[in-house]
C-alpha cells in the first residue's frame, strides 16, 4: 500500500518535472532544432535560395565539399584561428589573472581596463582594428624611426596574427575575470600548507593553482574553442575574408556561398558539416576536461 502510493507520487513528480522542462524544450526546438533539420533538408538539394523548386540531389553536395579547395581553405583558416585563440587566450588570461592576483596595487583599475573591450560588439572591434593597423600604429614608426610592419591585414601571411591580436584584445579581459574569480576562491591555507612542505612557487602553481582552477579551465577552453570556430562578425567589418581568401572562415564562406553565390543547398551542406565538427570537438573536450576535474 505504502509502496504503491510512493510510486504514484513519484510518477506525479516526474510529470511535474516534465512540465517544468517542457517550455524551454519547445522554444529551443522551434528556434534552433527545426531550422537545423530544415538546413539538413536543404543540404540534400541544389536549391538556389530564390526559386520555388528545390531539386533533390542526395548527398552530392557533401561529395562536392570534399573537393572544394575554397571550402577546405576556409576550414584551414578556421582551425588555425581556433587553435591560436584557445592557446593564446587561455594562457594570457591566466597569466593576467595571476599577475593581478599577485598583490599589485590598483588591481581594480587594471581589471577594468582589460575588461572594457569585451563590452564592444565584434563587428565594431573588427572596424577598430582595421583602422589601428592601417592608420594608427604606422604612426609609431614615424615617431620612433622604426620600420615595423603594422599592416597585418594587408598580407595573407600576417592576416591571421592580426586577427588573433584583435580577437584577444577583445576577449582576454573576459576570460581573465573568470580565472581571477577562480584564483581568489582558492583557500590560502592550501598554499600555506604547501609552503610548509617546502614546495617552490612553480610547484605550488602546478599542484595547487591549476587543479583548483580546473572548472574555470573547462569553461574557458570550451567557450573559446566553440566561439572561435564560429568566427564571423569580426571578419565582416575588418578583412572581409581577405586578402584573397586568406581569412575566410567557414561561416563567412558559407554565407558567401549560400547568399551572394545563390547556392543555398550547397551552403547548407557546409553549415551542417560545421555543426557536426563543432559537436565532435566539444564532446571530446568536455569529456576529457571533465574527467580531469573528477580526478582532482
Amino acid at each position, binding site marked *: 500500500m505504502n509502496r504503491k502510493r510512493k510510486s504514484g507520487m513519484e510518477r506525479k513528480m516526474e510529470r511535474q518535472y516534465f512540465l517544468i522542462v517542457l517550455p524551454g524544450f519547445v522554444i529551443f526546438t522551434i528556434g534552433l532544432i527545426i531550422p537545423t533539420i530544415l538546413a539538413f533538408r536543404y543540404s540534400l538539394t541544389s536549391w538556389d535560395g530564390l526559386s520555388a523548386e528545390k531539386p533533390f540531389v542526395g548527398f552530392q553536395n557533401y561529395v562536392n565539399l570534399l573537393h572544394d579547395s575554397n571550402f577546405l581553405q576556409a576550414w584551414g583558416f578556421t582551425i588555425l584561428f581556433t587553435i591560436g585563440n584557445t592557446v593564446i587566450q587561455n594562457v594570457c588570461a591566466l597569466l593576467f589573472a595571476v599577475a593581478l592576483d599577485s598583490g599589485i596595487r590598483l588591481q581594480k583599475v587594471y581589471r577594468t581596463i582589460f575588461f572594457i573591450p569585451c563590452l564592444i560588439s565584434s563587428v565594431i572591434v573588427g572596424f577598430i582594428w582595421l583602422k589601428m593597423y*592601417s592608420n594608427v600604429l604606422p604612426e609609431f614608426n614615424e615617431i620612433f624611426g622604426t620600420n615595423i610592419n603594422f*599592416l597585418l591585414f*594587408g598580407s595573407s601571411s600576417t592576416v591571421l596574427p592580426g586577427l588573433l591580436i584583435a580577437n584577444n584584445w577583445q576577449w582576454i579581459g573576459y576570460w581573465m575575470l573568470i580565472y581571477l574569480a577562480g584564483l581568489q576562491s582558492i583557500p590560502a591555507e592550501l598554499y600555506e600548507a604547501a609552503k610548509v612542505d617546502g614546495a617552490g612557487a612553480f610547484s605550488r602553481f602546478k599542484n595547487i593553482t591549476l587543479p583548483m582552477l580546473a572548472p574555470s579551465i573547462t569553461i574557458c577552453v570550451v567557450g573559446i574553442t566553440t566561439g572561435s570556430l564560429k568566427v564571423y562578425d569580426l571578419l565582416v567589418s575588418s578583412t*572581409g575574408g*581577405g*586578402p584573397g581568401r586568406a581569412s575566410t572562415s567557414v561561416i563567412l564562406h558559407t554565407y558567401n556561398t549560400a547568399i*551572394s553565390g*545563390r547556392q543555398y543547398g550547397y551552403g547548407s551542406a557546409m553549415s551542417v558539416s560545421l555543426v557536426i565538427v563543432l559537436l565532435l570537438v566539444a564532446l571530446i573536450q568536455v569529456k576529457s576536461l571533465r574527467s580531469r576535474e573528477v580526478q582532482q
Partner: protein
Amino acid sequence: MKKKLLSLMLGTTMAASLLAGCGGTAAAPAAGNAAAETSAAEAEAPAAEEPVAEATAAAPDEAVTLTVLAGQSTTDAGIEDMIDAALAEKYPNITLEWECVGWDGEFHPKMQQYLQTGVPDIIIGKGQDVATYSSLGILNEIDSTYTDRVLDAANENVTFDGKIYGLVYNALYQGVYYNREMFKENGWDIPKTQEDLQAIIDDCNAKGITPFASHMVDTWSIGNVTMQFMMNDVFNKNPKWGDDFRAGKVSFSEDADAQTCYQYNKLIYDNTFPETFSLEQTDCDAKMVLGEAAMKVSGSWSIQNFLDIDENFDFGIFPFPNQTGDSKLIFEPNIAIMTSSSTEHQDAINCVLDVLTSDQDLAVEIYDYTKTAPMLKGVTPTYPNPSQQDIDKYAADGMVVDVNLGNNQLVWGGFQDENAADIAAWLQGDETFEDCLAASDARVDASSSSTN
C-alpha cells in the same frame, strides 16, 4: 496540488500577457505591417489574375502604406527622406515604409527572405538586379508613362522580352580618374593605348610619383575594375562572351583577352601603394587628393570623397586603355526601382513613380546629394563635378558603354566577387595565375544572373 499547478499556470499566463503588453506599446504599427505583409503574400495568386490597374497615377482616396526595400550604397543613404518629403506634398495619402539596407551585404539576403514569404511593394536595387529578379517573375512591368521620362540608353539593359522591369534613376561613370593638375604639370596626355599608359607609369616611377591609387583591401574594388577591363577588352569584341563562356566556347584559361584583363590588375598592383591591401577607400581617396598618386581606376562613388576632402580638387576621367586603343567610358545604371507583381496597391505605386520621374526639384536634390549622373530626361544636377566635361566629351562621341551588358551575363554575386578574391590571392602570391584562371572557369555554373 492541482491548485498549485493552476496558480502556476495562472502566473505564467500573467507573465506572458505582461510580456505581450510590453511589446504592445509600440507593436501596434508593427503588427499591422506584419498582417499587411501576410495578406499580400497570401493574395499573390488572385492579385495576379486581376487586370493590372491602369497607370493613371490616380491618387488613392484612402491612406495607403507601401512597403519599400531599398538596397543602398552609402552614397544613397538619406534619399529616402527626400522622397518622403516630395511624396507627402503631392500624395499625402501615401506613406512609404522604408527598410533601408546596404546593397553590398544585406540586400540580397533580404530579398531571399522575402522571396520565401512575399516581396515588398517597391524594391530599390541596382540596375543589374533587374535581370535577376525579373527572371523570377516577381516584378511588374513599369508603365511606359514613367519609363518614357528616362533616357533610352538606360532602359535598354532593364528590358527583358520587350518589357521594362526597372526604372533606372541615376548612373555612375567608371574609368580612370586622374589628377588634372598633375597631368598638366608633367605634360602627360590622356592615354589612348596601353603604350601611352605605360609611358605615363614609367614617367611617374622616374619622378617618384605613385601611378595608381588603389584600395585592394576591398575585394569588391578588384572585381569592379576587372569588369571595367573586361568591357573594353572582351565584351567590345564579343558582346555575347558570357553566354559563350557558359556554352563552353570560351574560357578564362584559353582566352588571351580575358587573361589580359586579369593581368591589368597586376599592372596596377605593381604600380600602386605598397599598403594597398590595408588601405581603405576613404584613405586611398585622400592620398589621391593630396597628390600622392596620379590616377585611380574607380567610379563616381569617389567624387563625393574627393570633394569632401578638398572642394577644389581638379580631376578628370578617361576609360582605361585597351589593347586596341578604342576604349569606351563605362556607365553603370545605379538606382533602379522595381515594383512587385503581387502588390495590391498598383495605383499608389504609380503615384510614387510619378513623383520620382516628374518632380524636378526632387531629382536635382537627389543627384546633387549622391553626386551621380541623371538618367531622367531634362534634369541637370547643380553639384560641381570637374570630370563632367570629360564625360560630356565621351558621351558626345558615343564612346560610352553600359556595364550591365557584362554584369547581366556574368553575375556579380558568386561569380565576379569570387573571381576577385582569386585575383587578390594571385596578386598576393598565394595562388598561381593558372589556378586563378581555372578557378574562374570552375565557377561557370554560378556565372549566370538569371536563375532559369
